[in-house]
């Protein structure tokens, strides 16, 4: 890696790591189920950034682009299913509070 590339790489990775920690904070502390889903999405965005950096630094941007597009499509499916689960929970409890998801223990 040349000097410029190396700086670019460290800055992007630091930014991605910050985003992952923000997402983890969001998932761990929020009590609203929708907010947890937003945290998951944020985490995926950080990962997408990492993939783009990987493609750019290694000079294989075309490969990384096809990965990112596939990843975006898959994430949409996951979030759609997750939103369906949240709606199902809401129909049972009339509430989006994650603390009410506590019937399974042991």
């Amino acid at each position: 890696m040349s000097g410029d590339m190396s700086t670019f790489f460290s800055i992007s990775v630091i930014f991605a790591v910050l985003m992952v920690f923000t997402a983890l904070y969001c998932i761990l502390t929020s009590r609203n189920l929708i907010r947890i889903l937003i945290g998951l999405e944020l985490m995926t965005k950080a990962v997408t950034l990492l993939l783009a950096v990987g493609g750019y630094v290694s000079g294989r941007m075309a490969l990384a682009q096809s990965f990112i597009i596939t990843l975006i499509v898959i994430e949409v499916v996951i979030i759609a299913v997750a939103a369906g689960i949240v709606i199902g929970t809401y129909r049972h409890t009339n509430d989006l509070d994650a603390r009410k998801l506590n019937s399974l223990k042991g």
Partner: protein
Amino acid sequence: MSVLLILVPLAAVLIMNLPLHKLMRKLAFWVGLVLCMLQAVLIIRMPIGFWNTQPDLLYRLLLFRPFTDNLAFVMFLSIAIVGFVSLLVARYAIENDGSKLFNFTNLLLLAMAGMNGLVVSRDLFSLYVFLEVSAVASFILIAFNNGKDALEGTFKYLVLSAVATAMILSAIGLLMTVTGSVSFKTLSSVMGPNSGNPVVLLAVALLLGGLFIKSGLVPFHGWVPDAYSSAPSATSILLAGIVTKTTGVYALIRVVTKMNLLTHQVQVLVMAVAAVSIVVGALAALGQSDFKRMLAYSSISQVGYIILGLGIGSNLALAGAVFHLFNHAIFKSLLFVNAAAVEKQTGTRNMDILGGISDKMPVTGFTSVIAFLSTAGIPPLSGFWSKLIIIIAAWKAGFHVYALIAILASLLTLAYFLSMQRRVFFGKLASGFEDLKEANLWILVPACLLAAITIGLGLCIPWLLNSFLLPIRSIL
């Protein structure tokens, strides 16, 4: 031709969902059964050369060249058997409701296509794609009946699974920065010289962590009991029998062996996680009163054995790990089939209420005894041999403490299964179950089939060991 194992289930799902004729929806169940049987028969009958050839046209269309070896055969076979059993149990447990059975069949075929794809993938990114395909299908299968508990279990699984895939993907991104490629072949040659590189170390840690979550090993096991116990019976069979095994354990075996990851640190990490899983899973199973929850904890403990075999890393240990993977798919499915029968006939899974129902349900009682003896490692059943191979390999490689842990945890396994048998099947009939009946053929046939496989494999071990198990490493 192994690409057909992905394409045919997908095509079947597409065709069945075309609005052509009402008959389609009725036939779906039988189509699913035939596809599972076809997969099992073809895997046994066709030589390895047949599976590794691919017409040029298909390659140009798909740009995907699958890859098949002995380990992949084991996985294909267990996917076919467990899928078949799960469909039969769905027919039994989902009261002849046409549209529900239709939806179940569709999702099961999707999950099968995803798992078959995962088995043949030869780079990290397609591994991730197929992992997600089977994961999405299994999320919907767990929440199938829309019950409150099932939705809760699914949500927990979904969040942890999303975190796991984020970890796997960031590992892919980091590995790409260093090597510019994600195929196992390139990665295996690049990992050695770069093993001190901090970026590579971080990537390997993330990859292993993600796959540990997916395989439900302690300390990432939180979702396993919730998802297994709240899911409908047929889904529990599929999930415990094969989905976790393929998306977690098989992917872990494939990644570690293909990428030559087994350095000293990785070995210590993997074996420590495996030993903790074996002990914690067995201890937690002792204290359960819910039938399926106990089986879920037992599953965690058994997966620990497989990972222990992987961590030892010698040829013998890997053969034992793969054999235990197959055995576990068979006997854990059998136990979940028994749980399904008990739950449906008695209306409860609480082992404190049940008691002495072996008199009323003789076949279920008998097959569950076979399955638990195999899990606990009693000769000559198949589970004994695979555990024995792993323990001998651990001893020979100098990991005497781990071998001891594995043997002692085997006693714990025997303890919690004996307690389960005594509380559910043996002894005096509990009050309220006087007019209990044996389950019908839809569930007795798969139970007998799985029990026969467990006994048969145990008796054929001398032949299996030399002809199939020991060569596994040379092809990996």
